[in-house]
């Protein structure tokens, strides 16, 4: 089976190197075809590996020793077990779809060949991240995906905003990586190795406070990559990149790396439930916080980006509460429907000449029905409507929160689910139904190439049916991950499911209704018959006045005040402190030779004084 591992891992890098040859040349379809074929190959290998793992195999390959001298030994080793193989399949599947999709989307871009080089390089780095059997390998993959993400966000570097966003993402991630790096060194200091197996085997015998510190430091790294508060600002700005990139990197794969890290190190985190609790609380906060920002945005991609943030919060809640398999499950289903949503958004942008304001669209259903259906499917999945995938994974997270008696977390998630339903369908309604605003603005939208649509079909199908694999999935991954025991009675469970579903569906219906109503003309409103009907709308009106308006204000507040003021301010402050001290230390460099000589003698005198007065050895 080893050869499948090598194929899965190295096929993308071959593709990347191949298309690298063409970067300086003009657009060539061959690059796209070759990379797609190789990514598909990687996907097929991963799938084969998954079946093998299902039959009880665990692959552990040591490719070579990177560094082994003295006490340090870093093997270049890879591991395929129940957890990593799930990630491999998800990553390769989504990336294959995105790659094929991009053949259409990037058709007229001058960086066509470069794009495919980056995408394949990204997939390789991501696979290194998930397949590594030690923390250094993971970190290398971690930085590799960061670099690719930077390159891809800034893909249209001619646009100032794009390159700025790329740098923002890069710098913010580096800051968080600092925490991670410290965590790694602490691990090395305590365990003397970077190897997962050894570390997890010995973690139990370690001092809890040390493990907690390690856990916190690793989580800081995870926060950066998964754009958790307060490192979240880069993700929305990262939408400057091409849409397939947003689908692949900023929805399905890279941003979930933080969740993956927590799941991978679950043996560590399960020792420290307090840290887990912090993670869960933060996750719940982000779930609501991000969703509230999505409520008011008019930018198509940013709404989806905030939604991603919110869903990552859900995953962290699950992971923090010890329901690792549920987190992984939601990670997987989310990858399917969120990338589908993004790619659908890409279709719309394509049709609308890169217009992103959803208020300028409307009624697009007529011209692009297939995209509309796919996006509706994705939205249903996102909101967690039965029988779509999100229903199974998201409800499980809510259940887990309730189960642990963390009612405030549960409540936050519950509210978050409502908000999700609202913004998802607000988007659907504004884009696909209602007034055809785009006609006034002179757009001529059209459905995209058929092969692009076909390429989305697998994601659509998976978004619909993936939830039914819940039981086998649980059995599959809990062979490695710890089980999560529900202590709820069956009836409570059913009630909870019913309550959440009912709430979500209610919000969806209300939303659809409200926006549908927005299409009524004023003449109809004046008719008495309709006044009564309108009165029925006092509820939505009330909604609007009592809930939406304050929410709107609150969301604006969250965005404008907390986000811009506090976070940006503190980041600025740190930068300023360093900059100021730089200005001060610069004065030492007066350029006068006399001063230089004096500094040298000052140094001598100080050291001599230390030699005479400070002598711990004698």
């Amino acid at each position, binding site marked *: 089976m080893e050869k499948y591992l090598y194929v899965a891992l190295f096929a993308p890098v071959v593709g990347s190197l191949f298309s690298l040859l063409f970067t300086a040349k003009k657009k060539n379809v061959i690059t796209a075809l070759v990379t797609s074929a190789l990514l598909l190959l990687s996907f097929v290998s991963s799938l084969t590996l998954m079946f093998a793992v299902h039959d009880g195999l665990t692959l552990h390959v040591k490719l070579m020793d990177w560094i082994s001298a003295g006490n340090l030994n870093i093997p270049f080793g890879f591991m395929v077990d129940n957890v990593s193989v799930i990630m491999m399949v998800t990553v390769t599947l989504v990336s294959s779809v995105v790659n094929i999709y991009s053949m259409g989307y990037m058709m007229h871009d001058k960086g066509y060949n470069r794009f495919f080089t980056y995408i394949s390089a990204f997939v390789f780095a991501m696979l290194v991240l998930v397949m590594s059997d030690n923390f250094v390998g993971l970190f290398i993959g971690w930085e590799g995906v960061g670099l690719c993400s930077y390159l891809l966000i800034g893909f249209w570097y001619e646009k100032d905003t794009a390159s700025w966003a790329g740098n923002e993402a890069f710098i913010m991630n580096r800051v968080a990586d600092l925490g991670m790096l410290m965590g790694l060194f602490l691990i090395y200091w305590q365990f003397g190795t970077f190897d997962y197996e050894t570390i997890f085997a010995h973690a139990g015998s370690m001092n809890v406070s040390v493990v907690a510190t390690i856990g916190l430091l690793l989580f800081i790294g995870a926060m950066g990559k998964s754009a958790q508060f307060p490192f979240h600002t880069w993700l929305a700005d990262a939408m400057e990149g091409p849409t397939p990139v947003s689908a692949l990197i900023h929805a399905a794969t890279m941003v979930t790396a933080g969740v993956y890290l927590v799941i991978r190190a679950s043996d560590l985190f399960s020792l420290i439930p307090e840290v887990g609790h912090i993670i869960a609380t933060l996750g719940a906060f982000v779930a609501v916080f991000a969703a509230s920002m999505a409520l008011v945005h008019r930018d198509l991609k940013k709404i989806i980006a905030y939604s991603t943030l919110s869903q990552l919060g859900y995953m962290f809640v699950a992971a923090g509460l010890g329901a690792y398999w549920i987190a992984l499950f939601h990670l997987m289903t989310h990858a399917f429907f969120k990338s589908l949503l993004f790619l659908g958004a890409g279709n719309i942008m394509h049709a609308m000449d890169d217009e992103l304001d959803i208020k300028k669209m409307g009624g697009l259903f007529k011209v692009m029905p297939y995209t509309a259906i796919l996006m509706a499917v994705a939205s249903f999945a996102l909101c967690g409507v039965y029988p779509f995938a999100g229903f199974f994974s998201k409800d499980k997270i809510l259940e887990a929160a309730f189960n642990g008696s963390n009612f405030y977390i549960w409540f936050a998630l519950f509210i978050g689910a409502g908000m999700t339903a609202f913004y998802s369908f607000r988007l659907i309604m504004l884009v696909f139904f209602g007034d055809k605003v785009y006609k006034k603005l002179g757009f001529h939208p059209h459905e995209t190439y058929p092969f692009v649509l076909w390429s989305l079909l697998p994601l659509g199908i998976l978004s619909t049916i993936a939830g039914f694999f819940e039981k086998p999935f649980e059995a599959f991954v809990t062979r490695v991950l710890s089980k999560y025991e529900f202590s709820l009675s069956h009836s409570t469970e059913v009630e909870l499911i019913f309550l959440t579903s009912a709430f979500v569906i209610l919000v969806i219906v209300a939303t659809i209704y409200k926006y549908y109503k927005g299409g009524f003309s004023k003449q109809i409103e004046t008719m008495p018959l309709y006044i009564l009907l309108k009165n029925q709308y006092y509820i939505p009106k009330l909604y609007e006045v009592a809930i939406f308006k304050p929410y709107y204000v609150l969301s604006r507040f969250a965005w404008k005040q907390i986000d811009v003021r506090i976070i940006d301010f503190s980041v600025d402050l740190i930068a300023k402190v360093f900059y100021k001290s730089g200005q001060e230390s610069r004065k030492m460099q007066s350029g006068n030779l006399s001063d230089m000589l*004096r500094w040298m*003698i*000052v140094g*001598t*005198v100080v050291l*001599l*004084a230390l030699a*005479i007065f400070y002598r711990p050895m004698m």
Partner: protein
Amino acid sequence: MFEIIAFYTFSILVIGMFGIVVFSENVLYAMSALAGGMILISGFYFLLGADFLGVVQIIVYTGAVMALYAFGMMFFDSARDIKENIKFKKIIYTLSILSAIFVIFILMAPIYSTRVEALYPTIHGVGNVQMIGLILFTKYLIPFEVAAIMLLAAMIAGIVLVKVKIEETPSNIEVARGEK
């Protein structure tokens, strides 16, 4: 007795001479004092039985180095009182005094009592110059050759530097001076 008198006489003279070098406002005085100090230092060498070193000191330092400096001084046209813009005098003197105290304290520490076996002992009845010659051409042959390379490099460097033709316009310098 003779040694004591000679030591103190030479010491006072050398310190005085070097004091002039350090504090004088006139380059010519400073240079003459430096030359005098160097010659007096050779007195110590003779006192210590390092005859060869004493001779080298006079020839190389007073003969070659000082001659070079004299040429330099003529070239720089600085045989007049110079004005030095000395800032931060307090810092200078604090530093000077501190470093003096430390250096002297360290070198005075009565620590050199334990005798160490000489690696290249002086042999009684053999002249200093002879001994030096012997060591220089066996043990210290390599450093001697390296010193030759160094002197050659320094010579080439000196020649090539003086040969350099100045290309740039002096505007930059004027700007730099104007600033201060």
